[in-house]
Every structure is written in C-alpha cells, then in structure tokens.
C-alpha cells in the first residue's frame, strides 16, 4: 500500500491584521506565520492510521518553499516514511492547475495506490487540486470524505452531505481521496517526536528533477488570474445588547425579525 499525501503550506491568518499588497492581487504575507493546512492535517493522520492497519509506506509531498521543512518534518513525526519538498523559484504565483500539473508529474513516476489531500485549503479555499490531480493521473476521486476503509484493492468510504446525510461508496485503487476535517482525531506531535525524525533527509525537488516544462509551473502555468483582492468594507459595527436577560432576548428577537431571519 503506497500512500501519497499532498500537503499545503498556508499562512495562519488568525489573530493577524490582514493587509492587501500594493498590487491588490494578494494579501501581505511577510509578517504572517505559515503552517500546515488544517484539512491536510487530517489527511496525513488518515494515511498514518491506514498504514498502521494494513501496512505500507506513506510519502508526503508539498509544493512549498524551504521554510515548509518544519511542516514536512512534523508529517514524518506523524507517521510518514518519507517527505519531498518541491520548489523552484519559477513555481511562484501558481494556481491549483499549475500545482496539480507539478504534483501529477511527480506522482506519475512513483508507485501510488492511494492519494490523500484535504478537500480545501485554508487560504484560497478553491478546492480544485484534488479533482484536477486525479484527472491528470487518470484515477477516480472523491471529496469531503469522512470515513475510509481499505478492502483489498478497493477503497470503501463515506461522504458527508448537506443535511446530515451520509453517502457510502467504493472506488478501485489507485484513487484520490480528498478528506473532510473531523474524519479522525489527529495525533499530538511532541517536541521529542519531531526530534526523533531529525535524521531523515527531506529531499528538495525542483523542476529539473521532476522533468516538467518551466512554462507549465508557477504563474506561467496558471489558468486563473486574480483581478483584485480586497478587504470587506467596514460595516456599521456591532450592537451590544444590554439589559436584563429577558429584555436582551426580546431585543434580539426583534432584530432577527427585522432582518428577516425569523418569521
């Protein structure tokens, strides 16, 4: 069982004062901390748990600059056997399509039975990578998966739908599964756990090693062009409802009625 997990290195925007960059095509990221995309945390945990059950090898790969090594090392501590960091300067400014092109080229060259990703990324929330990557690899895929069980050459899984519905399905391996958050309880990674995997080398793979045309990566490989990024207009401010609980509740009901939230 060869499992490949695709990880994204995303800026942590919680508690940060966001500002838009001068060209208005992105937010300013210089002062932001980057970390593992939270959705992908569930993907690597699922890979580690599948490996614990059925055996095999977990490979982690991320298209991200050098600083992402901490994330990849954390993945090794979470149970991955090897990690690859893919980056060349030309990869700057890519979109989901460009990223999928690089990843598919990388994955084609190595054995893969199951590819796991998070369904969404915390930064752009595009949700494109899983589907495009599967299409490029010509394998089936599913998104928002909340339970996975490997049965021989098949992956049986459950998708969580709107309204609390569950959909059970099955796919032949190899396949790609984009997971939902909450499909497992990701393990805690202690300082010692990371220390234990410090000797594992994390190879840096560039466009030459992957063998992909520079025109297909980064901005030149992207098919989406961002017109403008802007902060939401400042609202009129929140109203703090004061008074006794009953009065406050009455006032809240009144507001909700006014705004049409309740009949």
């Amino acid at each position, binding site marked *: 069982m060869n499992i490949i997990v695709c990880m994204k290195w995303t800026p*942590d925007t919680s*508690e940060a004062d966001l500002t838009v960059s001068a060209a208005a095509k992105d937010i300013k990221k210089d002062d932001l*901390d980057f970390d593992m995309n939270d959705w992908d945390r569930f993907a690597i945990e699922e890979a580690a748990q599948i490996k614990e059950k059925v055996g095999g090898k977990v490979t982690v790969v991320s298209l991200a600059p050098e600083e992402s090594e901490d994330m990849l090392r954390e993945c090794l501590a*979470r149970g991955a056997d090897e990690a690859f960091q893919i980056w060349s300067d030309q990869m700057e400014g890519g979109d989901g399509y460009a990223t999928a092109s690089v990843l598919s080229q990388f994955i084609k060259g190595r054995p893969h039975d199951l590819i796991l990703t998070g369904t969404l990324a915390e930064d752009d929330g595009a949700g494109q990578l899983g589907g495009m990557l599967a299409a490029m690899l010509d394998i089936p895929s599913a998104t928002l998966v909340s339970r996975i069980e490997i049965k021989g050459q098949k992956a049986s899984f459950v998708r969580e739908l709107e309204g609390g519905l569950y959909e059970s399905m099955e796919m032949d391996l190899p396949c790609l599964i984009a997971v939902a958050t909450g499909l497992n309880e990701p*393990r*805690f990674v*202690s*300082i010692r756990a990371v*220390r234990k995997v410090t000797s594992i080398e994390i190879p840096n793979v560039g466009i030459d090693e992957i063998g992909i045309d520079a025109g297909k990566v980064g901005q030149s490989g992207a098919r989406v062009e961002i017109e403008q990024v802007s902060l939401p207009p400042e609202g009129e401010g929140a109203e703090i409802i004061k008074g006794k609980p009953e009065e406050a509740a009455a006032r809240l009901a009144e507001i909700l009625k006014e705004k049409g939230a309740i009949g």
Partner: protein
Amino acid sequence: MNILKPADAPILGAPAPAIAFIILFLSVAFFCYVMFRRLDVLRKAAPDPRFSDIPTRLLRALMYGFGQWRQPRYLGAGILHILLFAGFMILSLRSLTLIGRGFSPTFHIPFLTGSVGFAYESLKDYTVIVVLIVCLIAIVRRAVFHPKRYDHPGTAGHEYEAYVILGLVSALMITDMIHDGSAYRASGVCGEYHWFPAAAFASVFMPSNDPATLNFLHVGGYWAHILFFFGLLNYLPISKHFHVITAIPNVFFSNLNKGTIKPVKYGAVDWMELDQCGVSDLTGFTWKHILDFYSCADCGRCSDNCPANTVGRALSPKMISVKARDYAYEHFPIFDKNSKDPAHEKRLVGDIITEQEIWACTTCGACEAECPILIEYIDKIVDMRRYLTDRGEVPQSLQKPLQQIKKRGNAYGAMKSKRAAWTKDLEEFQVHTLAEGEHSDLLFFVDSCGSFDPRIQEITKSFARIMARNKLDFAILGQEENDSGNEVRRLGEEGLFEQVSGRNIEAFKARNFEEIVAFDPHAFNAIKNDYPEPFKVIHSSQLIYRLLSHGVMSLNGEYLGDRMVTYHDPCYLGRHNGIYEEPRRALKSIPGIRYQEMDRSFSRSFCCSGGGLLLWYENEEEKERMGERRVKMAMEIGAQVIVTACPFCLINIEDAIKTTGNEGKIEVIDLVELIDRSTS
C-alpha cells in the same frame, strides 16, 4: 491457685517451647518471603533518589508517622486512628513478651520488670480496653454509617479487608483479656482491678473455683493470641493493611521538593534519547511510587477532597493507588503462576487507569495535602501523561493551545509582537521594556494570560499602577517573554517545557534585576520550582504585603463598603508554595473590611478547575463546574466578594458566577485589583 503457664503445658505431648518455635519460625519465614516478593517489585522499578536530607526525613517520620500529624484533619476518624496507632505501639512490647512466654514462663523484656514492669502491665491493660472499644466503634461506623469515602467504585472485594483486620485486632484484645483474666481470677487479688481493668473485666465471666477451666482459658487464650498475632502479621502484606508496615518508611521517603515535577527519568543523561518517555506500566513508576501504592490504606481522604472527583470527573486518586496495588499483587504474586496471554492483558495505563482519569487532574494538590502518609499523585499523573503525550494521545481540546505555545510562545495564538500591547492603555506612566544588559529592581513577568486575555490585562494594568504609584523600579520582557510553561510541563510535554523555559531563562540571564515578580501563581511556581536555574521570584501578594508593612501604601475601604469578603486560596500559591498569610494580611489591612473564611480554605482550598492550558480543556463527564461549586461555598457563608490571587481562579469563578445566576449578588476580584481600587 497457681495457674498453669503456657510454656509449661505440653500440647499433644509436644513441649510448648517446641510448638512456639515452630509457629515463630514458620510465621517469620513466610512473612520474610512475602516481604521479599513485595520489595522485589521495587527493585525492578525506576530509580528515585530519596536519601537526601536525612534529618528532615527523620523529622517527617516522627511528625507524620509517629506523630500522626495529619490524622485530626478528619477529627473523628483521626482520633480513632491515633488511639489505634498508640495502642499498636504500646502493645508491641506486650506481643514480644507473649512470644517469649512461649519459651519461658518468666520471660521479660529487659527493664520491664519491677515497678516499671507493673506500670507497663497496667498501661497495657487500659490500652487493650481502649483498642477493643475503638475496633467496635470502627466496625459499627463502617457497617452502619457507610462513609462514602471508603467505597471502591469499579472494583469489588476490598471492603471486607477492613472487617478482617478489625476482627483480628479485636480477637487479639479478647484473647489477651482471656489469658490475663484467667490468671487474675486464679490469683484472687481482686483489689487490684483498677490497675488491670481488662483482666478484671474478663475475669467476671470466669468461675473462681474451677482450676481446670482457668488453666484451659489461660493456656488456650495464650495460643489463640499467638496464632491471631502471626495471622495478622502475615495478612498485612497481602492486603491494604500493608500500610501498617510501609507507612512510616513511606513518610520517611516522601517528596521533599514541593511544587515541582520529577524529571522524566532520574539519572538519564538525555531523556529525549530514552526508548520510552513517561510511564506505561507498573515498573515504569519509581520504587517510591510503588511504595505509595502499597502504603495506601484506602481511607479515601484524597478523593473526598479531589475537586475533579467532586464534580463527577472520572478521577479518584485513591482508586489509582488501589488499582495499581491490585495490579502489582496480581502481576507480581507471592507464588508464581502461569502468566496470562499478554495480548489479552489489560494495560495498566490506558485500560485500568484510563485516559479520562489521567487528563481529569488539575494538579491542584488537594489529595497530597490530605494524605496522612504523604502519598504523591501529581508526579504519577504527569508521568502517565508524558507517556500519552509522547504517543500523541493528547485530548483534542488541549492540542491547539499546546501547538500555539510551540509556535508563538503563548496558548492564545496571539502574535508575539503584541505581547506588550496592554501597556498602551496606560496613560499615566510608561512601562519600560528591559533590553539586554539593562537593569531594573523588579522584572515583572506578565505571562501569557496577563498579556493577551482582555480580562486579565486589567490585573496586569492594576499591578503596573501599584508599582508605578509606589515608585518601584520595574520593567517587563515584552516580546522576549514566553509562556512560563507551568501547565505545559504538567500536561506531560517536557520537550516544549524545556523550549519555553529555556527561552525565558536566556532572557532573564541577559538582563539585570533583583527579583522577578508575577501575579500568576502558575508562572511564579514554574520559575521558582521548575526552572533549573535559581532566580529570585516573588508573588504579587508578597510584594503588596511588603509595601503595606513598610507603611508606604495607605488603603481605604470605599470600594468594598460593608460587603462581606472571603479569600479563595489559589492552589499554586497556597498548597504548592505555602503562601497563605501574605494575601490575608494584605486584605485585612483594608480599613473596615468584613471578612469570613470559607470552610474549605488554606490547604483545603477547592480548586477552581485549573489554570494555564487547563482553561482550554473540555471535560464531558463533569456534572458541575468546579468554579460553580466554589461560588456556592462562598455564597453559603454569606460572602459578597471573593478575593483571589490568581488570574485563572478569577476567570473560572467569574464564569461560574454568571452560570449560577449570581451576577450582582457576588463579585470576584483579584487581590491586585482590589488593592489598586482601594488605594487612597
């Protein structure tokens, strides 16, 4: 008549001394074998250096062991135990004498002859009566009144042990009375009954003119006593009553380093390189911790005072000892038996002591403050957490704050650059951030809560105001400050503790100051007791008391008015560091203050549910929040203001005042804020 002495009465044709020898030999041999098996487990356990500072240890053995110092914390049961213990001490000489009398009818302990011997005999006789009465009361207490703390939830078959012991002790007293009573009856000196009340009382039931019966009672009572004595001796190490033997050594070897946590493994050069971090099995505990398990008498005082247990969490400190002792007795039995299939074995940590129990503890230390024989729990809990943490099995609600501390040095996930943002709200004066190489008298360690929690920032600002108003030379670390690591360590993430504490220590060493001051007792405790380098650190309450006692600060009672005030002792200030008086004296220097103690105060204070990272911990079992219970305790004594000296107590109690619907009726305030508001 002259009564027949046991040593002179052959048994089934065999001379009595031979029988006495056989009984003595077999009993002592078996006892030694059992003790060897029990102590052999300690030899297999983890190392623990407990031979330092022998004078203090001897003093403790005297005070808590022979002096039974903590027994009266439960007055009724305590008095009964003290009487029983004193009885054991006094009667031990009697027992030795009686063993000797099996060999020679005139055997005496040296010096116990003549009038001293007579006085001892008389004292012994009174003691026998007292011990018998105590046993009867204890039996009735258990059987009729069923104190809840004696229960063994989840395990069966322990309650009867107490009856076996009480029965054996009663039998010892009764056979002693029969033995001596028959001799008393035979001697005919009825005038001496007030010297020998037990013998005299027993003799009432015996015929005066029947030498055969008296001889039979005298000799029979003797041998029954001997058999009960050795029966009791050998029952001790196979039951919970092992404490009779191990309690005093347990007190002698007790932990002298209060407030801190033991290293991952004593003697390990680099714990990070160990095969395993933390404790997963019995012999992973230190030998002293296993001695603790042996020594527990199941009295349940720990669990009775455990706040987690009180609100319905899975934890019962006593049951940790009981379950571990059961496990020890089963896996290291007196006679080897065929070992079970290890695959189906229940694991000690995880199955028998569950994860829920292990995470439910707030490390408040109420159990340790209560245990009459100084059994330790916090180090064991932390050792088990270390194991779980190392395997990644940390409750989800605690993972995020731990990760935030790793990334940003605070559990709030706030940007480091905003650590000193609170200083901007102060208009009257500037708070100086101490740069490397600079000097200030006081280094104010704000900690994460004081830096980032909007409610706690109020305490931070109040404290800065008090210091500025009193012209104290103080400064902060600003961005260079990291979380103190107190809870990080207690949640078992030793590596992260080393990381954050290491950064703080580096920052301290690069600056010059006389003292560190903190208003968070958790930070105060970590710096004082956990940091490997010694720094002088004081708590805000100590600084305030110092200012008040030097007369540089004058207070008024306007803020409090005529409201009734009580003080809630924070665990890490009181129990862990013994600071009970300074905050109270500071409070009482507010003119006209009306003050009342809660029932649970000082070392019996009731934890508000924990500080630091425990603020994030979500527990599903509890029926009530600890803070809510605490608010009720304050309301019961008619308090309208709860003063505390810990930011987390404040948060928990403030929440609890709201959730119990007592807003407006009672207020909680930090001592620092109260002093700030009461300054003229």
